[in-house]
């Protein structure tokens, strides 16, 4: 009798509980807290209103709303057709495809890192680094001319940054336009072809279970995401402007 171990309180409780009152009261409490926070925030801090809109007076820097500044920062590394149109479409479509590409049955409905390491790494990298970190950089560190300024630096509108970027084919000694186009095309298509082939080789046992289409789409999305990182590294580290220049588009 005395030696019996104390039972955990959780044991013996029913698995399901009534929504009224247990959930409804939590929702009410949460709503009250949010309402108070929003009211206090709105009393203390005023929404900004600058001078009237003037199409003849362009501010420097001109910034998009803060939640798009990650994309605006990608404009440094890519042309608008990619950074402003194709990349957002890839983000939206890629997010929608997640449930259909991730066939790992584990980790459904609970927090786990060990059972789905790759998925968590990829999503966290995309969300926290490529989206949130770029937004923070765009809001706080991008000054006039979209130049990089540290928080303690003066936003000098006349800051001169030498444009020493060259295209990748030029850096490899290709000087004629047509050869450069061929070279760039070979690099870009080679990147995707080799990346896809390497992935299919490494995951060859999974093809039967996962399916060809799923694996193909998944690796294309991974390669696009990784390609954006590679392009950023090439620009920042090696002053590479474009990898592939064509009469119609540049990458």
């Amino acid at each position: 009798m005395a030696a019996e171990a104390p039972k955990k309180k959780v044991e013996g409780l029913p698995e399901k509980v009534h929504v009224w009152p247990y959930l409804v009261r939590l929702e009410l409490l949460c709503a009250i807290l949010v309402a108070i926070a929003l009211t206090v925030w709105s009393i203390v801090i005023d929404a900004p209103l600058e001078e009237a809109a003037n199409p003849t007076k362009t501010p420097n820097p001109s910034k998009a709303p803060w939640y798009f500044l990650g994309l605006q920062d990608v404009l440094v590394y890519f042309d608008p057709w990619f950074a402003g149109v194709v990349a957002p479409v890839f983000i939206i479509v890629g997010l929608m495809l997640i449930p259909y590409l991730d066939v790992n049955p584990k980790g459904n409905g609970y927090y786990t890192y060990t059972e789905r390491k790759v998925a968590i790494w990829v999503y966290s990298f995309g969300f926290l680094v490529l989206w949130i970190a770029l937004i923070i950089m765009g809001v706080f560190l991008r000054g006039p001319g979209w130049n990089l300024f540290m928080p303690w630096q003066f936003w000098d509108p006349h800051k001169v940054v030498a444009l020493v970027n060259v295209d990748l084919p030029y850096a490899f000694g290709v000087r004629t336009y047509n050869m450069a186009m061929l070279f760039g095309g070979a690099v870009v298509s080679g990147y995707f072809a080799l990346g896809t082939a390497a992935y299919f080789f490494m995951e060859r046992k999974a093809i039967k279970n996962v399916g060809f289409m799923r694996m193909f789409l998944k690796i294309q999305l991974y390669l696009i995401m990784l390609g954006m990182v590679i392009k950023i590294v090439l620009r920042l580290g090696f002053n590479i402007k474009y990898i592939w220049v064509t009469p119609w588009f540049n990458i």
Partner: protein
Amino acid sequence: MAANKPEIPSLADIVAKVKSGEIFDEIKKSIISSQVWTSSFRHGYADTPRNRVLQIVSNVWLHLHPVKIHRHALRIRFTWCMGGITFLLFLSTVVTGVILMFYYRPVGEYAYFDMKYLQYDVPFGMLMRNMHRWAAHAMVITVWLHMFRVFLTGSYKPPREFNWVIGVFLVTFTLLLSFTGYLLPWDQLSMWAVTVGTNMARATPFLGHEGPFAEFVGVTPRYDARSMLLGGSLVGPPALLRFYVLHCIFIPLVAGALMIVHFWRIRKDGGISGPL
């Protein structure tokens, strides 16, 4: 006199009563048995399982809920409460937004001065505007966090794949709602932010006049994806009107319809996710 003196409870007694919860029962009992209460409410609420179910299923607002949920769904550490907060913030922007619409005209000549009027002359105008803007910004953040939570718990996995797709639409529409609203103050901040944002549309492949392959389609600065969005070749009064209609009517209707599907599918897909 001394016999009528009320007994003063000791501090230890009060602490003990608060700790045991006994004091709340006593307060509740004294309120419910008071004349004001008994004259106002004709009968009490018996806390029976049947009544708990009826509270949910016979209430048009609450019947969105199931009558029972898994215990883990109550834990803030599991849900972060972000989906619910996002919806609450959306409702806040609807209420404050309707009030703002009484004072704001989406016309180039008036819009900015209506903002000034709202801020300086309309009672609580500044507060309404602040609440609308901050709720919108907060909603962007909470919807991202909701999505992050849903990803981390793997809640997009079968059978909830389609509700994740609806959710991605809702994230997109949240951003578009915020973006279209950004133009309406019609000040330098809004005009140039929207100029930067919509300039991207002219680089749309095939459909933007500066985009790849535009020469094969024959789009011009006055006739392409961007001009369709703006009603002109720059962010001017027609763009203001278009963004106003998109912001106040079109996107809220579409997002509202998607929210209905989103919430309905939570129930149909087996309620909030949890360990199988």
